[in-house]
């Protein structure tokens, strides 16, 4: 049994232990690309909330005298205006709020449902597990867009439908991941020890299994957010998602595409924001995966 060099150093370190999370955070902070991603996100989020305060314009105000003007400092139309004379600067900010909200909230809900569902299925095992995972398989097979079209036809276009539809699909993959991880965690000796101590199943799942399987889920979720934003953008682009008077990046891109020849900034600017956000989340996701790599955990 060889002593890990890190163990030897830690023995001489301060009284306060360094948890695995703290060690991972340290590794993450050292990753330049990941921190750059965090910076980009912070800036875009700040922009989303500060822009309306800084600009004198409103999101829906039509300025018929200044239709489709290019970005200019004059009249503080820093991103220009669209075909209806609406200021793009505040609209991009509004779109950011909507797109980020959908991305984050949907992912959060999907993670919560997926983690609990997968952990329970994996831990309980047997028939229950089989049934639960067959349900997942069936739902998985349903085509997302098909389902959304049906929903939209029945309930009309509604931003909450977008949340619901995307979330209803994303939790499935998370459930599968967590179930697999739970099956592995069930075999560990510390779970066996907890069982031998008489810990009830809820305690084992919540305190022993979930914290130890959540690593891959975190990485997956971070890479899920941009996917959700992209799906929402696509839906809105098709006219199935967010509708006027609200706006989202997808909607802005859709409108921008129509005016590509005459006013390219209407497409380029929202698309750049979307692309930057996607990059940021991807860098962060990669950074998290490296930081949480079990091989680095003693």
């Amino acid at each position, binding site marked *: 049994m*060889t*002593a890990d060099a*890190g163990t030897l*150093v830690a023995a001489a370190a301060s009284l306060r232990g360094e948890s695995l999370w703290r060690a991972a955070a340290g590794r993450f902070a050292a990753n330049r690309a990941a921190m750059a991603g965090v910076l980009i996100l912070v800036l875009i989020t700040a922009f989303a909330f500060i822009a309306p305060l800084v600009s004198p314009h409103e999101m829906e105000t039509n300025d018929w005298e200044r239709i489709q003007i290019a970005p200019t400092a004059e009249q503080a139309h820093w991103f220009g205006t669209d075909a209806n004379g609406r200021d793009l600067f505040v609209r991009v900010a509004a779109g950011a709020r909507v797109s980020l909200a959908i991305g984050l909230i949907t992912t959060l809900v999907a993670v919560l449902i997926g983690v609990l569902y997968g952990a329970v299925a994996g831990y309980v095992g047997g028939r229950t597990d089989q049934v639960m995972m067959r349900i997942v398989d069936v739902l998985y097979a349903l085509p997302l867009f098909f389902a959304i079209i049906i929903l939209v036809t029945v309930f009309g276009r509604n931003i909450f439908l977008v949340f619901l539809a995307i979330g209803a699909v994303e939790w499935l993959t998370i459930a599968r991941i967590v179930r697999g991880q739970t099956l592995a965690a069930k075999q560990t000796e510390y779970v066996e020890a907890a069982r031998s101590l008489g810990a009830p199943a809820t305690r084992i799942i919540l305190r022993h299994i979930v914290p130890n399987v959540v690593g891959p889920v975190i990485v997956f979720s971070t890479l899920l957010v941009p996917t959700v934003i992209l799906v929402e953008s696509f839906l809105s682009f098709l006219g199935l998602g967010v509708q006027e008077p609200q706006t989202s990046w997808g909607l802005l891109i859709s409108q921008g595409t129509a005016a590509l020849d005459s006013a390219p900034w209407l497409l380029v600017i929202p698309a750049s924001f979307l692309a930057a956000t996607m990059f940021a989340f991807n860098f962060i996701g990669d950074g998290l995966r490296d930081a949480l790599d079990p091989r680095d955990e003693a």
Partner: protein
Amino acid sequence: MSAAPPILSVRDLSVRFATRRGSVEAVRGVSFEVAAGRSLGLVGESGSGKSQTCYAIMGLMPGNATVGGSARLEGEQLVGATRARLDALRGRRMGLVFQDPMTALTPHMTVGAQLCEILAYHEGAGSAEARRRALEIMERVRITDPERRFEMYPFELSGGMRQRIVIATALVLRPALLIADEPTTALDVTVQAEVLRTFRAVVEHTGTSLVLVTHDLGVVAGACDEVAVMYAGRIVERAATADLFHAPAHPYTRALLACRPRLDDPPVARLRTIEGQPPSLAGREDDGCAFAPRCGFAQAACHSQRPALLTRRAADGTTREVACHLDAPP
């Protein structure tokens, strides 16, 4: 004593790790030699640096490690050698045996195929020739019914058998030196004896030199000609096995020998232990002997001045190296 140069010659070997929390000196100036056909046991507990010494010789150090000093295999310097050269030496001139036989063997290939692959890759042996030599080495490591075992997968073999296959893979290219890191620790006591006898037979019959790393003195008693005891990154005693067991000079060696409960002793209420724990290897080293805080015979000089490893001649004419201020064991 032959005048032939030693197969392995280590001088002042040191290993330092740079970690996020500071530097750790796992090995602090270790020197020893292994002659051809001789076996050395490197004994020490966790944190003594014995395994790191071997990894440094084998050239298997992680990126944050700095190796200093010298380690010569058949005269060739290993410290600082290129990765390509070390890869070429490992297997052909140096055979390695690690603790866990299951991870050392590929699960999806038969053991025979694995031996043949080594021969084909390193020496370009044809399949008939490779098979012949593989069977030969399997017999050499006392695997019964080698033709049948040749076709078996690692999971079909017992722990002791697997470890002997690993030894076979380490020996099949006829290296000059075999290095084994805790080869019997994961095995049952009953199987351990078999594997150690295999090592002994290999050394005696093929003339391969052996460095055996272990924390168990009972293991080296049967398998090694010479023993070096390590503590806190240094060698504290080195002697012929019989001499070391007969009259251990260093207090740590004596304490270590006393710790193990022996079946032929009368039962005792309390086992002898070494109270406390080994010192931390992080940061600057303290003055004085590393073992002094736990030593029952420590004197003032022991805490302020580190004893050097010096050759000592005993009354019965035997020589050994000891790093201790005490002239004779009290």
